[in-house]
Every structure is written in C-alpha cells, then in structure tokens.
C-alpha cells in the first residue's frame, strides 16, 4: 500500500472545498455551464446521456479495503448501487447528482481518493501493471515510478493545459499487463549492463480515430533522468502539438508526422538543456517514495499446502484456479484475479454489496489490498495458497468466481450507447450476448486465450483496435452497425487488428464471432496455438471467407 503525505492530503481537501464552492455558484447561476465545464472536468465530472458521470482515479490500480468500502458507500448513497471499473484504472459512477457531488468527493477525500487527472487536457492518472510489486521476475515495483511521475505532474502548470489529454503507463515485467504500447508515453522498467535501473521509453501510442502503436524513442533512460526526459517530450509536444484540430492534437499524430527519428532528435536536444536541472531526481526522493510503499509481512509457507491439494479434486475449483490464480513472487502466495465478467452481466460493473464483501475478503485473505487492472477486472494481490479454496467459495457466493479470466467471455467493453453521449452504438448488450453464447466453460476453455474488445464509437475507449477480436459500433442510416477486426493485441507484441469485411447488424454480431471462432478451431495447427497466433499465421482471409460465405 502507499501512504500519502500531508501535502497530498491538504491538496485533496482543498480541492473538495473549492469544488463545493464552484458547484454552489453553478447552481445559483453565478457560473454558466461554459465557465463551469472546465472546472467540473478537472474533478472528473462528465455529462452523459442520463445524468452526470463521475470518474474517480485509482492511481496505479492499488486500493486499500477501506477505500473500496468507501467506493461502495458512494455507489450506494449517491448513485444507484453500483460502479463501473474502466480500462484506465478508474471507476465511474453513472447516475450522480451535481448537487451531491461535493459531498461524494468529501467522503472519498477522507480515505485519500480523488478525481483529479481523470479528465481534461492534462496528464491523466498514470497507470501501471495491476500485479505491480507482486509479479515474479519484476525488475522493481513500477508504482514507485508511477507515484514519482504522479507527484511531479499533478496540477503542474506545464501539464495542465496540454493540446490534448496525455496518458502514461508503466510496466516492470516482460509480459506487459499495462498496455504501455497504446499510451502516449509507455515506460518499461529495465536494467542496463551496469545493473542500473532505468527505462525503455516508448512514445506516440494511442487508439481512437487514428490508432498507433507506440515506438521506442530511447532504449535506456536512467531512472534519475526520467522526469527531465518526459518533460523534454512534453515540451516538444507542447511546441508542435496541433491545438487547432482536436483530431490531430494527440502526440501520436505529431510523432507520426515528424517521424520518430526527427521527433527523437528534437526531444534529445531539448533534454540536453534540462537534463542536469532540478529535474534530476535525487536518490533520497526515490527512497522516500519507496519507503511509503509497504508490503505485507509474508509468512514462510509451503509451495503446495494440503488445502490446495485436497481442493484440486473439485473440478469447479480447478477450473477457477487455472485461469484466475497466478504465481506470486513469494512462495506460498498467489495473485487472484477477480472476474467482473459474469455471464450476461455488463463488463466491469460491481455492486456496492460486492465491493463491501470484497473489501472484507481482502482484509481476511489479502492483507487489506485490492488491485484494479485495465481488463476491467479486480485482483487480490497477496493470497496465501492455503486460503484459495475458502476464498473461492466466498467469491462464488458473491457471483465473483466466474472462471473466465483471459477467456473469450472476459470481454472489455466501453459503456457505449447505453450511457455515453458520444456513442454511435451499444457495446454492453453485445458483450452480454457473447458471454451467454460462450457460457459453457468447456467450450471457452477449448478455445483458450482470446480477448474480445468492444467500443461504441471511434474514440475506442473499449480498446477494440487491440482486441484479438475487435468490435466497433458505428451508425449507418440510423442503425447500429458493427465493424469487426481480428489480430489486434495490447501486450508486448502490440498490434492493430485488421478489418474482416463490411459491418454487420446488431443481431448478427454474436453469430459472426461464433463463425470466426469455429474457423479458428478448424484452422489451428494444434490446441496450443492461440487464436491470435493462428490469425498471425494465416491472415484475415480464411476468417473473412468463413464469415461472409453465407452472408
């Protein structure tokens, strides 16, 4: 867990009283919506189809049980009893009343939660691997660096009025769970030959209307130089970034237009000016942050406790364990992913009751800590293996033990036309139908790892470009139509998917996905060849043939 210091606590509290005053002035008419909009966006408040939407940050995806309980309280008291976990380690509440928002913010501030950097053209919530600090083989806990960047950029004037929003993600593992290649800046923590800690820096990733996979701009930037290097990137961006055209304002467009070589030369030049400035990070600063991250007092436990051996006889437990339980850096412990993708449910939603109960389970089994991942699932990061059977039973009672993590029904979906004012088409009902089609665990297991991502418009909040199967809702003559891509991925081999052909209607989407899956099962060389690898080997054509042969 991370303990905020006094400065942060004061800042958060000041923000709440400031916003309370702003809301008051808005409701009295002293502020117009035009004047107020930028203020509410600075506090995570959007206007959606049915109501205001309130987006709360969960920095680098780490939550304490008392914080999760507080989110449950906000859901229950100010909203309709549930919240929606997003792909950027935030949670959204969909039905909040403006007049009550200051109270909700104040309640959250008491436990150190806020909504800064969740909207607007600023530096957004810096995201990280949801397994940070517990993943085996990690270079170092990436949250230390996420926190450093968060502190440096929060409300920093240079980062508060950018041409467009700006997103950074950090990973410290070979397997990228933070999707760094689709971020404006992606940082991969590595060690150089001398054993020093630093970063491979990637730049210019992003989805939306013009998707790009980030490119490596520098293979190694020493940890102590990372702030100056990021600042150099931002300065070049601020200087050239297209403020005139919202569709071209993201750094990905600039990197694309200048080319990575020219862009990196410009950054390098800028960097040389500021590299040895006060931006250079003292070891003590990093040490101070490091010391604020506390880790549990792990016990010395056996690798294979009796409880686990006995539970292995239960096929239902085994089905869940196989896809939800992952190795931990400490022997005798596991990381448990909690699927927020029940059959027929909206991906990423959790009720207040589930959040409360999960907070209790975290206290009992995970040293009071919960994680939020970009796949819209949660995780308990420190579960003793002997407790897995008991935890599973408890999760199952809460409807939180669907054994589908990383399988075809573990779908990422944006709110789409059911909630979002920018949407062209619905996303959630498509996801719901797909989870019903593939509800049979044997079938899903036979198919193996397959990520479906769904967005309700080209803004791509549902990451459709990088889904193994990507589904994008568009509108044609007043009707919802869905374009389907295959072959995208968001991990260390990130790639954009390719369109398989003309869009299909709402009612046809699940059938088309079924066709694609059937084609894959027939085409794969062996059961271990994942869908994404079959697509890579064969290209789009055989899938296209299968889908459109009868349409």
């Amino acid at each position, binding site marked *: 867990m991370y303990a905020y210091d006094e400065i942060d606590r004061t800042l958060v509290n000041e923000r709440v009283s400031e916003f309370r005053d702003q809301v008051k002035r808005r409701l009295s008419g002293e502020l117009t*919506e035009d004047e107020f909009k930028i203020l509410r966006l600075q506090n995570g408040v959007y206007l959606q*189809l049915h*109501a205001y939407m309130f987006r709360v940050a969960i920095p680098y995806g780490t939550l304490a049980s008392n914080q999760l309980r507080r989110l449950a309280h906000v859901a229950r008291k100010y909203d309709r*009893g*549930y919240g929606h976990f997003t792909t950027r380690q935030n949670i959204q509440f969909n*039905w909040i009343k403006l*007049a009550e928002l200051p109270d909700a913010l104040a309640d959250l501030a008491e436990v150190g939660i806020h909504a800064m950097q969740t909207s607007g053209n600023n530096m957004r919530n810096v995201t990280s691997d949801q397994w940070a600090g517990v993943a085996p083989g990690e270079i170092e806990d990436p949250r230390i660096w996420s926190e450093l960047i968060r502190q440096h950029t929060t409300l920093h004037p240079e980062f508060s009025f950018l041409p467009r929003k700006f997103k950074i993600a950090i990973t410290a593992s070979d397997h990228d769970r933070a999707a760094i290649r689709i971020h404006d800046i992606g940082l991969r923590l590595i060690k150089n030959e001398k054993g020093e800690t630093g970063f491979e820096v990637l730049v210019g990733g992003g989805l939306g209307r013009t998707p790009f996979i980030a490119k490596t701009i520098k293979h190694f930037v020493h940890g102590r130089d990372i702030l100056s290097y990021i600042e150099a990137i931002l300065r070049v961006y601020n200087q050239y970034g297209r403020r005139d055209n919202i569709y071209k304002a993201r750094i990905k467009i600039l990197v694309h237009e200048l080319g990575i070589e020219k862009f990196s030369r410009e950054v390098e030049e800028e960097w040389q000016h500021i590299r040895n400035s006060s931006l250079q990070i003292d070891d003590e600063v990093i040490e101070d942050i490091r010391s604020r991250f506390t880790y549990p007092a792990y016990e010395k436990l056996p690798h294979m406790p009796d409880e686990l051996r006995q539970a292995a006889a239960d096929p239902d437990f085994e089905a869940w364990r196989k896809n939800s339980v992952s190795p931990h850096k400490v022997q005798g412990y596991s990381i448990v992913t909690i699927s927020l993708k029940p059959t027929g449910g*909206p991906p990423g939603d959790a009720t*207040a009751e589930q959040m409360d109960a999960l907070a209790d389970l975290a206290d009992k089994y995970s040293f009071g800590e919960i994680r939020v991942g970009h796949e819209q699932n949660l995780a308990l990061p420190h579960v003793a293996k002997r407790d897995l059977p008991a935890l599973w039973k408890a999760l199952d009672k809460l409807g939180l033990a669907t054994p589908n993590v990383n399988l075809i029904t573990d779908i990422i979906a944006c709110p789409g036309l059911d909630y979002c004012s920018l949407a062209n088409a619905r996303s959630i009902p498509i996801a719901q139908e797909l989870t019903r089609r593939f509800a049979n665990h044997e079938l899903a297991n036979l198919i193996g790892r397959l990520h479906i991502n769904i967005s309700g418009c080209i803004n791509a909040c549902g990451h459709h470009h990088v889904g193994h199967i990507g589904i994008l809702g568009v509108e044609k003559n*007043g009707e919802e139509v869905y374009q389907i891509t295959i072959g995208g991925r968001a991990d260390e081999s990130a790639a954009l998917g390719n369109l398989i052909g003309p869009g299909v209607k709402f009612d046809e989407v699940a059938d088309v996905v079924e066709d694609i899956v059937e084609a894959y099962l027939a085409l794969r060389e062996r059961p271990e060849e994942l869908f994404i690898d079959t697509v890579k080997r064969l290209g789009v054509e055989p899938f296209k043939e299968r889908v459109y042969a009868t349409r």
Partner: protein
Amino acid sequence: MTSPLEQKKIKIAGPSVVTANRTWDGIVVYRTAAQGWSADLSEAAIVRNSDEAKALLAESVADDVGAVGAYIAPVQVAEDGKVEPGNLREQIRRTGVTIGQPVQV
C-alpha cells in the same frame, strides 16, 4: 447515432423537441411550451420547422441554470398525438439503459 452534441447547422427533417439534462441532478428533460423543463416527453414543445427549432433552442440555451447541453432531437408524433423519441439514442435517454442494471431501483 451520430452524436447530436456535434450539431452545428440547424435543419430538422420532422417534428422535433429540445432536450437537455437538468442542471442540479442531470436527469433528462424536455423544453416545454411554457418555457420550463419537464422530465415527461409528452409535455415537450414540438417544433416542426427550422425557424421554430432555432427559436426554441435559443430560448433553452439561455436557461442555463435550469438545464445543460440543450439540443434538438427528433420525435415521432402518432395520430392520437402521442409523442415517441425519434431514434434509439433518444429512446435510451427516455427509458433508460437497455441492459438491466446490476442493482434494481
């Protein structure tokens, strides 16, 4: 649905209303003929040509304390005068999400 928030030119193809979200709580409201807002579509002022639409929108936008994000939305008016939303987006705004919420209210 192409988001009406990008509405620039005002040109209406059929009967329309002005809709927005009520400022204090955000709920969906419709501009009434009595220069107020109502959560009930049947109370909405119906406009039938671009000039009427423009005038109703201008008056609605001016009432920024009452409601925010006002725009023109199509409706269908049945022979008996019953008013229905003109597209899926407006249908969803009127009747709520199509997906069943995790918690029933």
